[in-house]
């Protein structure tokens, strides 16, 4: 009996052990799965890497590349990854293998999952080589935390000479974090300008001349007419705060402060104290009352009206050929009317902001084992026309047909990064698409070079000292965001907003901005009243 009991206890132990062992085995099999998976997805890279080793180049411009390298590259995607992505990656790898003895392991992360995934990767110091690192996704704070590899001026000259020449010194300076370079900027519409986009077919139908319209005051009578004759259209819709665009003020993203753009003064002024700001709020409240904007403007979460052709006019950030881009992008939308066409008119003068060159920049990870090779790849990526167009539009004859030297006709349903081209390196190398002007890239270059730097170029408000107050402010004032869109009466809600802001610590934030601003001016040897 004792014996029997001992045996049964042993059996019970064994059962527990079975649980633990199963879990470990399962875990191991999971572990083994991983290399297999990545091997199969990167088969071309591995096989071609081994097969071509004898014939591969040993040297490029005096830099030793005899060691085959695979670079892991995290890129952002804004929707479904185009079909045939594997085929394109194979072609890319064939090319980079020949040129640099390097293959690319490209992984896409959705824009919506980006922060969660990338934060986890960076926090745990995961090993990878390159990552999409735009200013609007924590480039500066990640760089300060040491997530990115520093590109020294020497390395810039040695590995990225052509890329260096793509941008002016002022632009390179604007990408610095604490005096150091951490990213290769994207080359696109670096300058920023604002203006009107409108439904040209509707304007023509009723003889409306939108090119004369400059301000929101100018457009009011036109909106009234549209409301009357085209009741199905939303007369005006904004994605962004109507005060954007440097018409009266320069956005600082720092407390209530702003700079006036109609004088040379470097003195910060409070946005609410400026008559133009109040006027704009009142104007939009009037738009709302008259039914010129959609009633759910504050909570709308659905696809942009502009892509379904349901809006007449919009004030937005523009660049040469933006209207053609909008038309091409909207054509794919089933709800977009067949005969709808957008036209544009740039109203403000182009200007260069701090984030100008960092809209689509790429950084090298500080965990990369091969930062030199990554820099060499980026040099190729930024300057090689074949590689650029392969990534953007796929292979000639399969994904597109060439109409002329620099113009292509995409084949329906095949690989294309339609609507995402701006995110991939040097857009000036892109082939021209149907509907785009012959001199599109010349226009871009002229647009960029005509731009004036903003008055605050080089100033970044470091939010760290007032993080607590800023969080409180965001929480306390979110309900007032509807005022931007005209849904709230500014006479009633503006005082309320200011009261709430004061309670949440706006004064402290404002002081901190003033302090940092004074420091910034001192570093430039200026005073506020200069």
């Amino acid at each position, binding site marked *: 009996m004792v014996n029997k009991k001992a045996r049964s206890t042993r059996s019970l132990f064994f059962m527990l052990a079975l649980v633990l062992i199963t879990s470990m085995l399962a875990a191991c099999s999971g572990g083994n799965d991983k290399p297999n998976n990545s091997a199969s997805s990167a088969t071309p890279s591995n096989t071609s890497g081994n097969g071509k080793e004898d014939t591969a180049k040993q040297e490029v411009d005096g830099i030793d590349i005899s060691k085959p390298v695979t670079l892991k590259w995290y890129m952002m995607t*804004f929707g479904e990854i185009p079909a045939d992505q594997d085929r394109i990656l194979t072609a890319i790898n064939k090319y980079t293998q020949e040129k640099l003895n390097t293959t690319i392991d490209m992984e896409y992360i959705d824009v919506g999952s980006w922060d969660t*995934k990338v934060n986890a990767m960076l926090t745990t110091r995961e090993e990878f080589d390159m990552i999409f690192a735009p200013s609007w996704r924590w480039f500066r704070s990640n760089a300060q935390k040491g997530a990115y590899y520093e590109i020294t001026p020497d390395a810039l000259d040695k590995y990225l000479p052509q890329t260096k020449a793509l941008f002016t010194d002022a632009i390179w300076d604007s990408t610095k974090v604490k005096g150091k370079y951490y990213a290769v900027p994207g080359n696109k519409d670096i300058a920023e300008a604002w203006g009107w986009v409108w439904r040209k077919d509707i304007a023509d139908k009723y003889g409306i001349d939108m090119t004369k319209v400059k301000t929101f005051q100018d457009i009011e009578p036109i909106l009234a007419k549209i409301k009357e004759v085209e009741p199905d259209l939303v007369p005006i819709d904004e994605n962004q705060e109507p005060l954007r665009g440097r018409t009266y003020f320069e956005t600082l993203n720092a407390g209530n402060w702003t700079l006036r753009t109609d004088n040379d003064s470097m003195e910060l002024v409070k946005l609410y104290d400026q008559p133009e700001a109040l006027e704009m709020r009142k104007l939009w409240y009037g738009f709302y009352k008259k039914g010129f904007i959609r009633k759910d403007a504050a909570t709308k979460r659905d*696809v942009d009206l502009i892509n379904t052709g349901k809006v007449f006019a919009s004030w937005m950030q523009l660049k040469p050929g933006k209207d053609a881009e909008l038309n091409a992008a909207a054509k794919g939308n*089933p709800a977009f009317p067949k005969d709808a066409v957008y036209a544009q008119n740039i109203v403000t003068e182009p200007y260069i902001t701090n984030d100008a060159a960092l809209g689509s920049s790429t950084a090298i990870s500080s965990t990369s084992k091969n930062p030199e090779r990554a820099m060499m790849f980026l040099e190729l990526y930024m300057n090689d026309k074949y590689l650029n167009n392969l990534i953007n539009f796929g292979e000639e004859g399969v994904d597109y047909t060439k109409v002329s030297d620099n113009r292509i006709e995409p084949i329906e349903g095949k690989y294309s990064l339609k609507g995402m081209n701006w995110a991939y390196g040097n857009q000036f190398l892109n082939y021209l698409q149907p509907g785009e002007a012959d001199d599109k890239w010349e226009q871009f270059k002229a647009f960029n070079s005509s731009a004036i730097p903003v008055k605050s170029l080089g100033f970044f408000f470091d939010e760290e000292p007032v993080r607590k107050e800023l969080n409180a402010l965001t929480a306390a004032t979110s309900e007032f965001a509807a005022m931007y869109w005209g849904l709230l009466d500014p006479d009633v809600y503006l005082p309320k907003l200011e009261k709430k802001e004061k309670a949440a610590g706006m004064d402290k934030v404002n002081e901190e901005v003033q302090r940092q601003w004074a420091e910034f001016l001192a570093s430039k040897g200026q005073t506020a009243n200069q």
Partner: protein
Amino acid sequence: MGTSISRTTNVIVNVFLIVLVLLCLLPIVLVLSVSFTDETSLLNQGYSFFPGKFSIEPYRFLMETNLSGILNAYKITIFNTVVGTLLTLLMVALYAYPLSRRDLKYNNFFTFFLYFTMLFGGGMVPWYLVCTQVLGLKDSIWAMILPSIFNGFFVFVMRTFYKSTIPIEVLESAKIDGAGEYRIFFQLVLPLSLPAIATIAIFTAVGFWNDYWLPLMLINDPKLSNLQYMIYRIMTNIQAIREYSQDASGIATSLANAPSEGIRMAMAMITMGPIVLIYPFLQKYFVKGLTIGAIKG
């Protein structure tokens, strides 16, 4: 009929339950209705319980453009749900059974070992480190199964069930008849504990079916995306693009490729799928499993 409740109580309870059922059902009906509404009338009139203009366009569009993606996501979800639920049941049943036996040496230690994990966790970062760098789960189908196949709470439910409903005499008689521990467990204990197993199966199956968090953390490969993560990606991508378009020029053009309202609602309907059918099938066990454990526990 002496135990019947009074008329007023009956009415109150019924009204309360009807309201509760409506609160649960109406959103689903609304989503269903929106998914069948014509896009133009949706933009002009907003959501409505009755489609202004009936249209099957969203479903047709999904079937034409994304059928393979949806089928693949279904495959992944079904695999995760079936394999994950089976593994969870095996793990939970195997761990709970020894704990239910008083003759297990170090019973207290193993119970505490389990209890401890219910109270304290390592936190997100260590968890992520273990999953990606120790277990190599990143971009593997097991990433959506292994991290959640063990659950301390279910083990306690299971243990209580074994203790309270399986008489020790049954086990002893089996032993006298010459059955070994494995035979006893698989041929006696498991069949007897079907109600508890069914209860846990419902919870875990629904959990696996609805999981989007594990793929969000560990899956990049769209081919490994399950249904819920697929819809999560579509929704959050649109949201993120809208939000970031304040700062990133150009990003708004990507919205053109985003699916319309109706298509997203149709997606939601499609992903709900067969999991709603699981309840009716397992319901009889469900009630039994809960009450038996509770009364005698």
